[in-house]
Every structure is written in structure tokens, then in C-alpha cells.
């Protein structure tokens, strides 16, 4: 048996080895030491195999169940903000880990509520990108996904069109893309684009989605909008001075959830907040202490039915 396995380790592709290592480690609870013996590879190699199995999504792990504390936070959020549901995941010191955790929770939430024939509108950002990657296997025949924002010609992966595409693929759903740049230089071009039959049709479709999944951005260089270089860092100061605390679908909001009439507003090609408000069920997925003001503004701007966030943001929201 051992000899045959050793043979396998030599013959199999590295992807096959990752799958085998993942089974041994996560399902059989073998130690890394035992796996290195079984697969006849070095211990560091086992560590690498397991790490890439996770990073490449060959294995996904979800931790369900709720601690009493987080259940308490969820209940208070529901009450305070008139939500149907709230999901609170554990916090982390690392903003990336929070986005991953909130995104994974959003994947569980969307996965549980999605039914065949449903239409899902999606925003973008790091959180939703994690959500897309954490979704399970395709299982629908007649579902559709609608991207609520324009795309980018070049991006490092958090492109709105890529997020929508990934979510659609994960559900086995049709994908409707907003085939326009997310940011244009000329506001007139934006109006001209919306006048296009294909794009106005997409906007009507967006108003009719059964469920919209959006995240919020804060006004900082760490927000995807600025991090991806879509807007220059020099815009941060003027936006803050105008009272902007965050954005939903790239629409800038003040602390009261009102859209701020900043010149940038007319250069963004994204489904309008009024369009979003037409949607019955809106799910806001964002976490981390720095996003508290933005989440609060978003909850005032649209009537969300669900909020998915982390403990730190939940506490921040409840202390306001």
C-alpha cells in the first residue's frame, strides 16, 4: 500500500496531490507528519500542498454555529436597524481576514437563499470577491446574476465584472454585465451610455432582481475604489470635506445616508441608488471597525433586509 502511494506521489499531478493531501488532513484528521509519510513527500511540501489547496479553493471550510455573544449582537442589529436578519462573524486584527470572513458568511447566506429562477444583483469589492470564491458548486438552471456596476479595463481581480462573473459561475447562473467603464472622464458619456438600449435594459433588470448583494466602501486609501486606482488619492480630501463617509455602488454618502452631489458622482457608471431601492431584499456585506460610518450611512440610504458584518463593526454600529 505504502509503495503504491509513494508511486502515486511521483506520478500524480500536483493538483491531484493537493486533493489527496486535503482529504488526509481535513477529513481524516491526519497530522502533516503522517501525510508526509503517506504521500512520500517532505513535510514542508505537505504544508505547501495544503496551503495552495485552500488558496485555490480546492478545499473550502466554513465554520457554522454561533457563539452566544455573536447571537446577541445579531439580535440587537436586527432590532436597531429594522433588519430581517443579521450575521456577525468573529473579528480579526487583519482587514483582509475580515473581508474574507464576511465574504464567506455572505456566500453561506446567499447560497442558502438562492433558488432556481431567482435573480441576484451584485456589487463589487474585496468582500464580495471573497464571497464569490467561497460559493459552492453550480446547481441552478434558470438563475441569473446582474452586475450593478460598470467594469474596468485592467484590474487585479476585484473587477466588478469579474465578481459578477464568478458568482454567476458558482451558481451556474446567467450573467448580465454592465458593459461600460465604471469611471468615465466625461459626464455626458455616462448619460449617452445609459441611453443605450442594452444598458437601459440592464438597469430595468437590476430594479427587478430578487436579491441584491452589496458591500460598502469607506473613504480611505484602503477602499477598493482608491486601492485599485480608479479614483486618485487626491480625491479623498475633497470627498471628506464634502461630508462623504463612504459609498454604496460607488455612490457617495454623507453620515445621514444622503447621496453627496460631488462632481465625481456624474462620472460613475453604476446602477443608481433609486434603482437599488426598488429591490425587495438588499443584503449589505461589510465588516471592520473603519467601515462603521459607511455601513451606518448605507443602512440609512437603503432599506437593507440583511446585514453581514463582523463583531467589531457590529459593536461600533450599536454604540452609535
Amino acid at each position, binding site marked *: 500500500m505504502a509503495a503504491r502511494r509513494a508511486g*502515486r506521489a511521483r506520478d500524480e499531478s500536483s493538483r491531484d496531490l493537493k486533493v489527496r493531501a486535503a*482529504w488526509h488532513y481535513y477529513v*481524516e484528521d491526519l497530522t502533516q507528519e503522517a501525510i508526509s509519510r503517506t504521500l512520500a513527500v517532505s513535510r514542508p511540501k505537505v504544508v505547501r500542498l495544503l496551503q495552495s489547496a485552500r488558496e485555490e479553493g480546492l478545499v473550502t*471550510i466554513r465554520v457554522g454555529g454561533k457563539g452566544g455573544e455573536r447571537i446577541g449582537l445579531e439580535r440587537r442589529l436586527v432590532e436597531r436597524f429594522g433588519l430581517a436578519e443579521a450575521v456577525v462573524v468573529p473579528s480579526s486584527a487583519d482587514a483582509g481576514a475580515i473581508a474574507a*470572513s464576511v465574504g464567506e458568511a455572505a456566500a453561506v447566506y446567499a447560497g442558502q437563499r438562492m433558488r432556481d429562477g431567482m435573480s441576484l444583483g451584485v456589487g463589487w469589492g474585496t468582500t464580495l470577491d471573497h464571497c464569490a470564491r467561497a460559493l459552492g458548486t453550480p446547481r441552478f438552471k434558470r438563475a441569473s446574476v446582474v452586475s450593478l456596476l460598470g467594469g474596468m479595463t485592467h484590474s487585479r481581480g476585484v473587477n466588478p465584472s469579474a465578481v459578477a462573473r464568478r458568482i454567476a459561475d458558482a451558481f451556474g447562473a446567467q450573467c448580465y454585465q454592465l458593459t461600460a467603464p465604471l469611471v468615465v472622464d466625461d459626464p455626458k458619456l455616462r448619460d449617452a451610455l445609459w441611453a443605450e438600449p442594452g444598458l437601459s435594459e440592464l438597469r430595468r433588470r437590476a430594479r427587478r432582481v430578487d436579491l441584491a448583494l452589496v458591500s460598502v466602501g469607506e473613504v480611505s486609501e484602503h477602499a477598493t475604489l482608491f486601492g485599485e486606482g480608479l479614483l486618485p488619492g487626491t480625491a479623498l480630501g475633497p470627498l471628506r470635506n464634502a461630508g462623504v463617509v463612504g459609498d454604496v455602488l460607488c455612490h457617495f454618502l454623507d453620515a445621514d445616508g444622503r447621496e453627496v452631489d460631488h462632481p465625481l458622482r456624474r462620472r460613475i457608471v453604476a446602477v443608481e441608488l433609486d434603482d437599488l431601492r426598488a429591490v425587495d431584499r438588499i443584503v449589505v456585506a461589510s465588516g471592520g471597525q473603519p467601515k462603521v460610518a459607511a455601513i451606518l450611512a448605507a443602512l440609512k440610504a437603503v432599506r437593507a433586509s440583511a446585514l453581514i458584518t463582523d463583531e467589531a463593526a457590529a459593536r461600533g454600529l450599536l454604540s452609535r
Partner: protein
Amino acid sequence: MRPSDTTGARSAPSSPEERVRAAWLYYAEGMTQAQVARVMRLSRVKVIALLAAARDAGLVSIRVNAKGAAQLDLERRLVERFSLHAAIVVPSPAREADVARAVGHAAGAYLGEQLRDGMSIGIGWGETLHHSLKALGEREVTGLSVVSLLGGITHSRTVNPATVARRLADAFRADCYQVTAPLVVADPELTETLWAEPGLRELRDRARRADLVLASVGDLSARATLVRERLVTRAELASLRAAGAVGDVLCRFLDADGRVLDHPANRRTIAVDLDDVRHVPRIVLASGGRRKVAALLAALTALPAQVLITDEAAAEGLLGAAPREG
């Protein structure tokens, strides 16, 4: 850390919150056990206990989304050879003792994905199905009903048929229908009398109308659940082997051709007949390990299974055996 933390941690019962947090840090954030211990200010021993408890409580849902080329090849060949709708082959575990856990994991994941509102599931028992319960995943399904296909045992050391059905039902707040009778009775006439009871007759009708049946097969080794639970004595085991039995499905002992043996052991068991579930649209058999090959082969002949969930070793054994007749 205070000295008392380490000693106190071992005996103190863990809170659900602690279990979730440990599982989260270890599985979702990918920390090592030592890192989790540091962050949570607990001993490593306590962390290991928390992680095991989280797994047992079904708090951790693990999905291996990809398959190796060897698995895919075996699956394709099994589907072809046994005219299946689908085959799922998991990598053979490093330790034989983990076969039920690995195959059970795949069976639970499969069952979880198949569940739909209002569905009725007929379920067998055994170690494999016991492990499957941990891998069902989180699904919101309503109006589910679960039908246990076998009688219960008054005292069990590991897995009770009634418990497998009950726990599946609990996981989805489903209605649970139990065979309220012993799995094995001393007096064969009692089986007739019991099945004549209105409640049990109704359960049997329900089993016939199930949308999906999930069962595993048993072999006739000393390690089979039936033997370990002492439901079959060593003398009976020898007598069954002499009569040509190779294993059982739903506690019906089969010969190598998949026929239910005319043997006293088959007349003392209270379980839904194979004929009762024959017309269930989706019959799923889940068992693995090289020692179950003969039993699996017999079960695949005895029941028109649409789905087989097994491991590489059993798959190779099945494909190496003579083709099924007809």
C-alpha cells in the same frame, strides 16, 4: 497564562462560543493549533479538544471541491460498469480505520446537496452513515421527513439506527419516523406480528414512497457493525458464511449473486424489505474499503442503486471483479 489555566482547561466543559472561535481560527483563518492556543490563551490540549468537539457538533463544514484524475477515472468506470447515475470516489484513507469517515464525509456532502423542501429520506445505519451526519453542511430546507429503515437497539456502543435517523432529522428540523421495534428479535414470528401493527405498516408505506434512500453495506468480518454490536453472534457469522453470505444491506444478508439468503438470521431482523425500497427513485449506497468489495457487489445486484459513494480501494476492487450479470 496562570498555572491553573492549563489544568482547569482540561476538565472545564467548553462553551459553544469557544468551540466556534477555535474552529474559526484554525479552519477559516488557517492558524496552527499552537497559534490558536496562544490567541485564545488556552493549552494546546484544550484547543485540540475544542476542535474535535466543533467537528463532532457539525460546526465545521469542510468541502473538498476538486477531484484527482484517479478519482475521476474510477468514477467514470463505475458509472459505466454498474449503470449508475453517478459515482463518487474519495481517495482511500491512509488508515483503513478512517474509511467510514472519508466515505461518510462524501455521503453527507452528497445528501446535503440533494435535499429539497418537502423531501422524504429513507436512511439505514452503520458507521459510514454515522459519519455522514457531520458533513451535511448548512442548508435551509423545510418540510423534510426522515424514515429510519431499521429497528432500534436498546443499548449500543457506537451507532444506533434510531440515532442516525434522529440526528439527520434534528439537523433540518424534519419529521422523523422510527421503526419502534428491536432490530433483532429472538422469535421470528414476532417480526410478522410487529409488521402487522398499523404504525409500523404506515412506516413501511412511507419508506416505499421515499424520494431518496441512503444505505451502507456491511461485510461479514469481525469488524462489521452488526458483529461489534453483538447483534450477530460468532456462531451465526460462521453459519452465514457457510451459507454463502458475503454481506448485508439494510440487515438483509446477501449471497454473492445479490440474493437475500434463506437463513434464520434474515428472519429475525426487523427492517424494511429490499423490495419495499426497490422503486425509490434514488437509491444511494455508501461504503468503502477493500473488505467491503464482495458485499458492495452483492448490494449493487440486490438493489437498483443509482448512486455509489465509495473509496478508491473498493472502486478498484469492484472494477476488477467479474461484470454484473444482466
